């Protein structure tokens, strides 16, 4: 068995034909992950006991003749901002270096109920803040495709394990592009579902109104299967949606003929020429498959980055207040007074990017500034959402780049936060609108760096988005 290229379908087949057991697969996947992880640092830690217990349960179900679920035996990595009961969840922060949650995130529970086998916790930017996975207290992640380059962020580890083959699929989280951008940098599929599609219960909050859990996979079908397993209404998350969950794999019928595809003109201005060419190839392919390609406009796009960094930092400043040294956070020992304890714990514990965002967020919410920043940003957010709802009266899906450039070198942008923030420019709009969006691989640059195409649809139209993505995937396979 070649674990690095397995798909969910292949695992199902292998288990049913008794080519291998779930325990054998888990053992081999753990061995491979342990051997390969030093090349990328994509896992913070592995969870062999939990993986083997889950695999045994799958084998036992199969032995009883029961269906162990759509993810039976599938090795999965979980981003370390998603809590796992009894399993250290660090958020890639010193502050939670020894934090062991007493409960499972709903997505984790569903994933395991569907037969998934959690191999370990994936590295990421601290509290999911970053675009390169260089802000981790446990060291940066290297891009498996080009080890001198970043895997993207913040879900860099989740993208890297799938690209590297040390997991078959993984869970990441996306607030402004943290699934799609690393998926595009590593050449894998990454989905940001509709806001409310997947429960956030147990996802450690960065910016609550923008945070999503979503899947990574090596192909569209596997991503669709994982999405179907974790989606649905959760009574523990008031913002989760009641909408029924369709069979996402059934939507992958290969037929995109007659579909109206919009190309937002604002998204094609600052692309590097190579990335632009790859997206153009996607568009040409879709046209060949019978899509009706149209140019559209999303006029509020220029304000998106400013709007996003006000809203997300405001929410972050509040969400990160609880890491104060009083309870589970690593407490600074060198303090005599309460305020010293707060200051020292947070001063020593948070990395630079978290501090920057906490300060920005505290500032924009301050008395006298709230209206000028936060309130105005909320209005801009409504305009961006309106741009999309107008666009979706004219087109069925939107195709756009994920990032202006492919994976950059480690350290290349760390000295310039603004430059780093601008790399999210094409992914932030979809996040602000709360619509489903994903990255699907569309070839490589001349240097061999992956490029991803972004596909966006209207709220809860994941099935349609996946159908377009599969068409792109097919086109790429055909060359």
């Amino acid at each position, binding site marked *: 068995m070649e674990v690095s290229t397995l798909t969910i379908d292949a695992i199902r087949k292998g288990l049913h034909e008794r080519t291998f057991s779930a325990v054998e697969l888990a053992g081999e996947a753990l061995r491979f992950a342990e051997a390969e992880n030093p090349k990328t640092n994509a896992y913070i830690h592995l969870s062999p006991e939990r993986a083997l217990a889950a695999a045994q349960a799958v084998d036992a179900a199969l032995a009883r003749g029961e269906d162990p679920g759509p993810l039976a035996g599938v090795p999965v990595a979980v981003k370390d901002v998603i809590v796992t009961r009894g399993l250290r969840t660090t958020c890639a922060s010193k502050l939670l270096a020894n934090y062991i949650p007493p409960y499972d995130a709903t997505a984790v529970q569903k994933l395991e109920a569907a037969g998934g086998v959690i191999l370990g916790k994936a590295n990421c930017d601290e509290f999911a803040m970053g675009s390169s996975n260089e802000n981790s207290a446990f060291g940066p992640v290297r891009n498996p495709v080009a080890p001198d380059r970043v895997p993207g962020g913040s879900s860099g580890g989740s993208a890297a394990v799938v690209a590297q083959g040390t997991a078959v699929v993984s869970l990441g989280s996306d607030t402004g592009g943290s699934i799609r951008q690393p998926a595009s940098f590593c050449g894998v599929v990454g989905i940001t579902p509709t806001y409310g599609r997947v429960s956030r219960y147990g996802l450690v909050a960065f910016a609550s109104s923008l945070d999503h859990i979503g899947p990574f996979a090596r192909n569209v079908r596997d991503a669709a299967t994982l999405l179907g397993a974790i989606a649905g209404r959760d009574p523990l998350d*008031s*913002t989760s949606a009641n909408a029924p969950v369709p069979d996402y794999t059934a939507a992958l019928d290969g037929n995109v003929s007659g579909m109206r595809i919009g190309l937002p003109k604002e998204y094609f201005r600052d692309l590097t020429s190579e990335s632009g060419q790859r997206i153009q190839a996607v568009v040409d392919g879709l046209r060949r498959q019978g899509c009706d390609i149209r140019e559209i406009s999303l006029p509020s796009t220029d304000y998106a980055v400013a709007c996003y960094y006000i809203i997300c930092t405001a*929410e972050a*400043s509040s969400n990160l*207040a*609880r890491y104060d040294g009083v309870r589970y956070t690593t407490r600074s020992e060198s303090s005599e007074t309460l305020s010293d304890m707060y200051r020292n714990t947070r001063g020593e514990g948070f990395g630079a990017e978290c501090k920057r965002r906490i300060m920005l967020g505290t500032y924009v919410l301050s008395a006298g500034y709230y209206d000028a920043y936060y309130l105005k940003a909320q209005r801009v957010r409504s305009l961006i959402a309106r741009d999309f709802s107008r666009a979706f009266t004219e087109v069925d899906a939107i195709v756009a780049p994920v990032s202006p450039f492919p994976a950059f070198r480690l350290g290349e942008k760390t000295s310039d936060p603004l430059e780093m923030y601008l790399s999210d420019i094409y992914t932030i709009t979809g996040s602000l609108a709360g619509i489903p969006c994903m990255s699907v691989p569309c070839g490589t640059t001349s240097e061999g760096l992956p490029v991803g195409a972004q596909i966006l649809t209207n709220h809860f139209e994941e099935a349609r988005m996946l159908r377009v993505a599969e068409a792109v995937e097919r086109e790429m396979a055909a060359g």
Partner: protein
Amino acid sequence: MPASIDELAPPGALAKYEPVIGLEVHVQLATATKIFCSCPTSFGAAPNSNVCPVCLGLPGALPVLSREAVELAVRAALALHCEVRPQSRFARKNYFYPDLPKGYQISQYDEPVAEHGWVEIQVNGESKRIGITRVHMEDDAGKSVHDGFRDSSRYSYVDLNRCGTPLIEIVSEPDMRSADEAYSYLTELKQVLQFVEVSTCDMEKGHLRCDANVSVRLKGAGEFGTKTEVKNVNSFRFVRLAIDHEISRQVAILESGGTIHQETRLYNVATGETVGMRSKEHAHDYRYFPEPDLVPLRISDAWMNRIRDSMAELPAEKRARFIADYGLREYDAQVLTQSRAAADFFETVARAAGDPRAAANWVIGDLSGLLNAEGKSIEESPVTAERLGELVRLIAKGELSNKLAKEVFAKMFSTGEAAAVIIEREGLKQISDTGALEAIIEQVLAANGKQVEQYRSGKTTVLGFLVGQVMKASRGQANPGAVNELLKAKLT
């Protein structure tokens, strides 16, 4: 520097000023579970035992609003004559404190659940309306414990059981003009909230907490003076004392040419003074913003009507009904509607007795007397309302004299037994049987020949003496009315 008593204003100076007072009252809702999780709200559990990931503010946990908490908040709002907003929103109030595990309180800010209400109080025999600015919902923090541990000199302990307990904050308009009015307002507020079963309002358990905003201005002045917020006034008596002290302190400062600084002051129960806690410059900036983890709260007309229909009668309505339906006097109705418990007790007695006015007299008179003597509340009465009702019924039926009834009642109060049991055991049943009475009368007449002579010769006033003798001979069990009639017949 705390204000000393000689810094306070003389009465003459006080008379020149008019105090302006508004109250912020926090009330714990009487729900079984917390506002954003299903942990119990029970009081007195072992520290940090009524907790879960949500109320502990663990990473990743999310709040889910309790329907019961919303319904009680709406009930309170309706009882306070507020307008309930069709849509309200929760907001985060951000501040650092060890017993606030999320680093923010989930409260309501610019869109509270209800606003624009009023409460009516009595001032010098006239009624006055105190405006309610708003009612909003929020979660309570935990409790910091600074004493009682071996290492209390170095550490504080935190108990998070109370964390997430549902509260409403009721903010009044600055409509009160004296500490007495503030006291009346609180009394009325507590009574209303208890009546509609929104809260037990038990101040000892912290179910009702009060902060007072106090300012003074020269009488006739149009604008309000600078206000201070007096915190930590946790009994009705202290509210009055703290406000009076603060008024006097402010007047003394103004009279000596000083200015009032906007600040938060703490009432010190031991000294009876208010002490500066933090100035406006050091006031918290709570950085409110809409709570992104909760969706807006929408309250439809249908839901609001269901809540309204499920509500108990308000004190004023009950008062009016007691007068109209039971023929009670205004004063009695007033006394019996002081609390929901008293009103319910009375109605049960009245129903069992079949004589509401007598029932009212017994509850207000004998029962209250004995309860007060033993420092018991009406809920703790050893005589149940049903049993008191039976006793009153026996009197109405003529089976027990008032005098005997009092004796029986005292025994009921000490033993908790039913009247019938005591009467049976002690042989206290009233004697109305003519044959039995005649036998006693014959004896009394035979023994008091002189008085019989006097009566027959026209001195009819001795009848009272003879009735008394019959009562005595019957150990008080003779029916006095019947004795009267029989005696008269025998003597003529």
